[in-house]
């Protein structure tokens, strides 16, 4: 498939069309692959199961000292005094940095909005005021505790709706507006369509604030020697951290090296340099000693924050034959006091993109709340949006007496309704249709739907539900990869991408192995080190594999050509007759000659360069809407006396094109759905409205799912709908599995009890309050 030929950029106010570098097209894999598509063991599995894998929070450098933050105890205040005298007396105390020292420094979000690193006027509980540094971590904590701060408390609100009523908001999303104006998207004429329709449904949905809860807290260790920083950071993107940190330090790009080999989970929270990164680097220079800055679990609940809460009022009109006529949506989400990170809260795109609908209008209000700035969290926006949109689809399907699966199939778009671009799927097929059909079959949707409808309501009530998702996941440039094959037959693969636990390192090794014939266990992957690997984007947005993978294949193909050329001479056979596999180049037996082969090591040894080097770059994408699709089917059992919802059965089907490693593919499904179950059933950061403090900044009261919370039957099903937009045929998968889960559960609960639960999480309290309204006699 042809790539788009040009990218448009702006140079000194002038629009310039940059030609894409000419590259020979490599077609996507055919059906037969040797290594790609197999369940290869993770290349770093042994390090991880033995405890040898060293994470940034594990590092102990000689002379290393420890930094901790002093955070605001108020939701909004002016600091009237700071007394450091007690802190300075703590044995081991080394230094404190206050806001005045860093008044020029700030973090910037993707749209350039700023966040101070330290502040004298904290605008949310937990905002950083001071950093202290001491010989030991215990001493740093003690010193932080000993800092006496007095505040003049200022008015605040943590309630996004209240802030919008007070006019304190900006427009959300990727094309933000200024203060006091919502972001608006519109196509067709919603008003007219609604006026003409006779089936209209409206409802308001609420999602709760969620926190990533990676098991490794945010962590950075920085050392400074001879004008250069080395930073070991638990991060999804070493190059983003390098760029941001160098800018904050006012230092040349190359004076900062960022290493992020192992990291203990991110889910969107470790995409950028943090305040802790800056403080570690700043103090490392100031003190001339390595500095470690690792957050406590309680700090993980304020810095960075996670998925902000949303309030979405959605109204839809439908024709009796199931044609979706109009969608109107008003969405409010918390965006913190600065608007910083507001792009991560928007819950609008999905309503505009997901289904074919001629008349759509969305309004987004990013409320300036006294809560921490939002941060990307797995499927930012979509996970919130699906809760309202996918329940609305269920509700209007029921309204016209149509099966919700049929209803969705009837309203699938052939083109992206927003961009107008064709959706990248083969003719006559649609990824979402395939997912819905396959999932429906495996789940026995039609049969079970009828069963629950017919069942009498005993104490336990059963229900089934479905929800769907689409997520732009084509990946793309930039990504450059180098493969070096050495004379002992071992290959080194250098890629900038972080492996955030998804198995990136392993998938890349499989892709390299497929072409070069070097076995996966003979490939050493060096990744996420700005000094050793080439630039790429952070591992976020489900783009890692689809971005870096094709570059790896291109580099591997470059190696392959060199290996084949030498092998062809040695084995006296045309290149096309030679197979590279299992560490050897082999000419299969023919009628005249027996099989002959030569080790790849030998080929390298005989090469003129004594090392085979391949460089690969990621080509552009076709000018299409590239989406990963998914559908989830859920069965629940609701205990009407205790309000407990048990998910008994769950089928998740995802189409992300070619599967590189089925074990890791399914792991993404399992993990994403589980996080979706947490969002749906248990996870909520609770605020005290009187003081604006989060009341449950710990993993006991913020309830992420445990192994005992898993559905008894849980099927993850990869569906490989052919895609030829890159040389792997693969699309991204990180976010899609979390998106529809909460809505699917809520739809099943409706099926079970006949009440639509419109606020997350679906706790026993919410179920009981719905079944036995508090106003009436309980």
């Amino acid at each position, binding site marked *: 498939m042809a790539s788009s030929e040009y990218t448009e950029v702006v140079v000194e106010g002038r629009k310039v069309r940059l030609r894409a570098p000419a590259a020979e097209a490599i077609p996507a894999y055919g059906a037969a692959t040797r290594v790609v598509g197999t369940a290869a063991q993770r290349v770093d*599995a042994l390090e991880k199961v033995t405890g040898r894998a*060293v994470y940034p*929070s*594990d590092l102990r450098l000689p002379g290393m000292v420890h930094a901790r933050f002093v955070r605001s105890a108020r939701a909004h205040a002016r600091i009237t005094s700071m007394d450091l005298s007690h802190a300075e007396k703590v044995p081991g105390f080394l230094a404190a940095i206050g806001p005045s020292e860093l008044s020029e420094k700030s973090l910037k979000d993707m749209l350039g909005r700023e966040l101070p690193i330290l502040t004298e006027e904290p605008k949310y509980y937990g905002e950083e005021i001071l950093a202290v540094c001491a010989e030991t971590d215990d001493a740093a904590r003690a010193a932080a505790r000993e800092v006496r701060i007095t505040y003049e408390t200022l008015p605040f609100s943590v309630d996004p709706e209240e802030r919008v009523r007070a006019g304190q908001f900006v427009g959300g999303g990727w094309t933000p507006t200024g203060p006091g104006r919502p972001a608006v998207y519109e196509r067709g004429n919603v008003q007219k369509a609604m006026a003409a329709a006779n089936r209209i449904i409206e409802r308001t949905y609420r999602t709760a604030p969620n926190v990533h809860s990676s098991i490794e807290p945010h962590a950075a260790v920085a050392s400074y020697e001879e004008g250069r920083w080395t930073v070991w950071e638990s991060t999804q993107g070493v190059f983003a951290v390098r760029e941001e940190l160098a800018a904050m330090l006012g230092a040349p790009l190359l004076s900062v090296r960022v290493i992020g080999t192992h990291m203990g989970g991110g889910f969107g929270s470790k995409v950028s340099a943090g305040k802790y990164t800056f403080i570690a680097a700043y103090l490392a220079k100031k003190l001339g000693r390595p500095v470690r800055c690792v957050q406590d679990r309680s700090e993980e609940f304020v810095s960075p924050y996670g998925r902000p809460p949303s309030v979405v009022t959605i109204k839809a009109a439908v024709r009796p034959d199931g044609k979706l006529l109009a969608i109107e949506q008003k969405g409010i989400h918390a965006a913190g006091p600065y608007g910083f990170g507001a792009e991560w809260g928007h819950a609008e795109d999905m309503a505009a993109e997901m289904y074919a609908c001629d008349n759509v209008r969305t309004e987004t209000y990013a409320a300036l709340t006294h809560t921490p700035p939002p941060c990307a969290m797995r499927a930012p926006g979509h996970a919130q949006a699906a809760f309202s949109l996918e329940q609305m689809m269920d509700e209007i399907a029921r309204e016209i007496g149509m099966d919700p699966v049929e209803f969705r199939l009837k309203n699938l778009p052939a083109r992206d309704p927003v961009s107008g671009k064709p959706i990248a799927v083969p003719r006559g097929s649609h990824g979402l249709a395939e997912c819905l059909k396959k999932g429906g079959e495996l789940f026995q949707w039609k049969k079970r739907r009828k069963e629950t409808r017919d069942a009498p309501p005993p104490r336990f009530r059963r229900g089934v539900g479905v929800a769907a998702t689409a997520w732009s996941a084509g990946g793309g440039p930039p990504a450059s990869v180098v493969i070096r094959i050495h004379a002992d037959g071992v290959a080194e693969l250098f890629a900038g991408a972080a492996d955030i636990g998804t198995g990136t390192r392993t998938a890349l090794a499989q892709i390299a192995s497929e072409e070069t014939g070097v076995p996966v266990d003979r490939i050493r992957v060096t990744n996420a080190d700005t000094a050793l690997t080439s630039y790429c984007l952070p591992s976020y947005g489900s783009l890692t594999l689809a971005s870096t993978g094709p570059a790896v294949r291109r580099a591997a193909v470059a190696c392959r050509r060199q290996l084949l050329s030498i092998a062809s001479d040695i084995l006296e056979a045309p290149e096309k007759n030679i197979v590279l596999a299992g560490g050897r180049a082999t000419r299969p037996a023919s009628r005249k000659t027996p099989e002959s082969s030569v080790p790849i090591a030998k080929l390298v040894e005989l090469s003129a360069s004594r090392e085979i080097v391949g460089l690969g770059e990621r080509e552009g994408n076709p000018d299409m809407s590239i989406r990963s699709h998914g559908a989830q089917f859920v069965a629940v059992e609701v205990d009407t006396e205790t309000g407990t919802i048990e998910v008994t059965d769950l089928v998740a089907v995802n189409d992300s094109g070619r599967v590189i490693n089925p074990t890791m593919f399914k*792991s993404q499904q399992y993990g994403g759905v589980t996080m979706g179950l947490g969002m749906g059933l248990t996870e909520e950061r609770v605020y005290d409205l009187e003081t604006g403090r989060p009341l449950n900044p710990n993993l006991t009261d913020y309830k992420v799912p445990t192994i005992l919370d898993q559905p008894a039957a849980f099927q993850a099903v990869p569906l490989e709908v052919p895609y030829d937009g890159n040389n792997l045929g693969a699309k991204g998968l990180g976010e899609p599995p979390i998106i529809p889960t909460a809505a699917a559960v809520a739809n099943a609960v409706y099926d079970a009890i006949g009440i639509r639960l419109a606020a997350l999480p679906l706790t026993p309290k919410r179920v009981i309050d719905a079944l036995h309204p508090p106003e009436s006699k309980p």
Partner: protein
Amino acid sequence: MSAPAEEKSSFVINGKSWSGAVHPLKRLLDTIREDVGLTGTKEGCGEGECGACTVFLDGQVVMSCMVPTCQAEGKQITTIEGLAENGRLHPMQESFAQEGGAQCGICTPGMIMAAVAYARDPGSAEDMREALAGNLCRCTGYIRIFEAVKKAMAK
């Protein structure tokens, strides 16, 4: 604020005697990571809510972040680094590697310790889940972990 009083502490860790001067209330987790120098035991929360720091103390799984070092005095400690014998991985480690039980890997050492404890006194599938219910994992959704333990038990 008085300087922390360190006291001599000794225990056996992964079969080797260790002694050193630490504050009696220093978390065993920190003593293991900082003083003994074994960082395979991870800190996820520091307050007994995630299980990442799980070790054996006299053969029982405990969260080392909730044990003051003085309560380990004279005891036997086993960490993830002590599971392999004669350079051979423990079958549970092997199984976690083969079945994809580790993703980002930060919960893996603690999870494997809990799984090994279960393997010494195995029961039903429900018992297996119960045994792993003190360890949080945010990546896997637990399915591969469960499969890994099952496979290791079948060996």
